[in-house]
């Protein structure tokens, strides 16, 4: 399953302060680990919201609002797209995201919809087959 990992903005990221060399090095190593574990699909850092814009929708009306935006903690400063076995694995990786300065921050984890999320793709035939397998298993076959 895939997860999108959203890194929330901080005062520094919104001010356009570039990451320290130490953070860059540690992030580089962390990204390398992600790639080696076959977890990393994509990831990017985002420029401060002062370089962004919002488009508000109301009926047929579209209003463009230029950045920066005030609610720093709700803004996103970067993202990853990961492929992992479970939410637990995603959490384990997120906990290992380097944070050398020890500053307060927040990372949000969201699961991506997949083709098999249509749910009841267990047809009656498939369910019967599974029951058959279960009974075979119970019979110690």
């Amino acid at each position: 399953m895939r997860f999108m990992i959203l890194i929330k903005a901080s005062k520094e990221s919104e001010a356009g302060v570039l990451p320290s060399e130490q953070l860059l090095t540690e992030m580089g190593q962390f990204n390398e680990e992600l790639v080696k574990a076959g977890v990393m699909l994509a990831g990017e850092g985002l420029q401060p919201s002062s370089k962004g814009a919002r488009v508000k929708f109301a009926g047929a009306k579209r209003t463009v609002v230029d950045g920066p935006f005030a609610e720093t903690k709700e803004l996103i400063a970067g993202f990853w797209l990961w492929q992992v076995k479970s939410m637990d694995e995603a959490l384990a990786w997120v906990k290992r995201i380097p944070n050398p300065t020890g500053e307060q921050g927040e990372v949000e984890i969201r699961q991506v919809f997949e083709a098999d999320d249509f749910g009841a793709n267990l047809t009656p035939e498939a369910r019967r087959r599974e029951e058959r397998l279960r009974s075979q298993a119970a019979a110690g076959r």
Partner: protein
Amino acid sequence: MLDVGLAEELAQDALVAALEQWPESGIPDKPGAWLMGTAKHRAIDLLRRRKRLELKYEEMGHELLGVEHEISEREFEAVIDDDVGDDLLRLIFTACHPVLSTEARVALTLRLLGGLTTEEIARAFLVSEPAVAQRIVRAKRALHEAHVPFEVPQGAELAARLSSVLEVIYLIFNEGYAATAGDDWLRPALCEDALRLGRILAELTPTEPEVHGLVALMEIQASRTRARIGRTGNPVLLLDQDRGRWDQLLIRRGLAALERAEQFGGGLGPYALQAAIAACHAGARTAAETDWARIAALYDALAHLAPSPVVELNRAVAHGMAFGPAAGLELVDALTAEPSLATYQYLPSVRGDLLAKLARFDEARVEFERAATLTLNARQRDLLLERAAQCDVSSTRLT
């Protein structure tokens, strides 16, 4: 001095211990690191035992020969603590060892490297759980009896062993991508497992072009997953797919992997060639824009490099698209006597398709019906019977 033989034996022991223990305790987070940890503990045990024995000998007044066997734990770690990636690589090569049957290799790989439970493997391959458990037990025994060294093969052996690893990964992918039996057309979890294994392998063996070729092939094929299933769970064939639903991220990753495979120069291997074919489809914005002449040429190369009746059949399809159905039919007709394709449903379905394009509907209908009796997949059967019915309609329209 610690000899390599002892280290190998210990690692082998650790693998066996892992095989015995993991079914109960579950797969550890890092199987590779865990394995080496186990090997280390075993070694320390062994060294302590040896030490006790030496003390006993001393007591008994025997002369000691092995004083230099005193090894500190740290020294031992230096010997045995290779790169963690190395353990994983050894594990992959051991699980995919040619002494094992293909089924055993697949089961062991999914169990040890994919982290699947025996129940999950059983469900994925539609066999009973005890059958999978038995497969794993037997595989374990076979590895033990054949004294398979727990190592990454070197030199000339590497190529053959690597192709066994790639085969297992691609088999797992394909079982997920085009389920050979049952009612589900796709089992995406198996595709994900295979893709992840492939990506890990590509990082561990970055100079093997075919590893990148296989990853490219899987990434591009997986990009179509969403588009391959219709609203009612019915399969949608490549040329009928809504290309807007193709996953562009996976396509980009696939193209990048293909580029890595190509950068080594020399001709492309079989996986890279298939990836190049998949890339042709991925690059066409509409089905009509497909560069069939290039695909036909790539299939010619593939047929030359890795000839097989199935490749030949695909070559026939490509030639049929590039140079007209008659050209395709000529190649298919050369295959009808092929014994290995006698029960292969794609032969009659491809032949049926080419015949229908040549307006030979009665012959086409017979082929589609024959294909429908050969497939084990219920959804595929429906699709084939539908095409057979269309032949009837078309043929009455002609008369």
